[in-house]
């Protein structure tokens, strides 16, 4: 029986990754980063933005898209280093600071999100309102 349960559990865990068409992003694993970044919103995967964007965001936490998200120096440094390490790699021209302003994000959501769904989510940064596996890194359920 134990074996069956284990196999089933493995299937449940592995299946979304196996069927993903590229829209899966490793969730934040670092404990401090996860705790702090998920206090007000979901901790967005580091690979959604390049290092230059994360650096800018982390330098301006006291005005974090209109909210005061300031942290002590030590924690700020720790999180910045984590994001730099795990960020999207490659060349970016004028990288956005908001994930929701990235071109692919806009294209991906433009015709898919109904007014009702938008209202329910409150904000486009509330991934979990529609992508139930978002905090595990899965965005394929659309």
């Amino acid at each position, binding site marked *: 029986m134990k074996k069956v349960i284990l196999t089933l559990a493995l299937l449940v865990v592995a299946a979304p990754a196996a069927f993903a068409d590229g829209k899966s992003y490793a969730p934040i694993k670092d404990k401090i980063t996860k705790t702090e970044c998920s206090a007000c919103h979901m901790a967005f995967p580091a690979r959604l933005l390049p290092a230059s964007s994360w650096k800018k965001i982390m330098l301006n936490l006291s005005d974090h898209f*209109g909210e005061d998200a300031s942290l002590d120096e030590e924690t700020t440094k720790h999180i910045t280093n984590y994001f730099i390490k795990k960020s999207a790699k490659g060349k970016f021209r004028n990288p956005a600071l908001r994930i929701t302003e990235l071109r692919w994000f806009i294209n991906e959501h433009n015709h898919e999100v109904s007014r009702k769904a938008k209202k329910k989510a409150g904000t486009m940064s509330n991934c979990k309102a529609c992508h139930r596996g978002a905090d595990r890194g899965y965005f394929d359920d659309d």
Partner: protein
Amino acid sequence: MSKPVFMLALTGLLVASLAPVQAGSARTSILEKLQKEAGTAFSAERGKILFSSTHKGGKPKTNSCTVCHTKSPLKTGKTRAGKDIAPMALSKTKDRYSDPKKVAKWFRRNCRSVLGRECTALEKGDFITFMSNL
């Protein structure tokens, strides 16, 4: 139940039962520190006014604690990004006001957002006193 398992369970129970006591003493020490700085006795009534009032000087969209925490500290609030906030009342969220770093962080952020300045030790003490008496 074998003896080691039983002992483990017993230790677990003991640790779990001690947790609120530890949170309680940490809370007392936070309040004592604020009390020394404030020099005046804390008032739950003043804390209630601070929580419920609409303030000037902060951000217009968050001009009251109640914008995110709802009018009742016994209820679950919502961040502006859509995440639930556990109720502020100690009777509902047992580990509130027991981590000095966390307490300092949220007073700093939210007093700046709502009042446009940091809160005084008296305001912080009044607030925690109000939330502890609900």
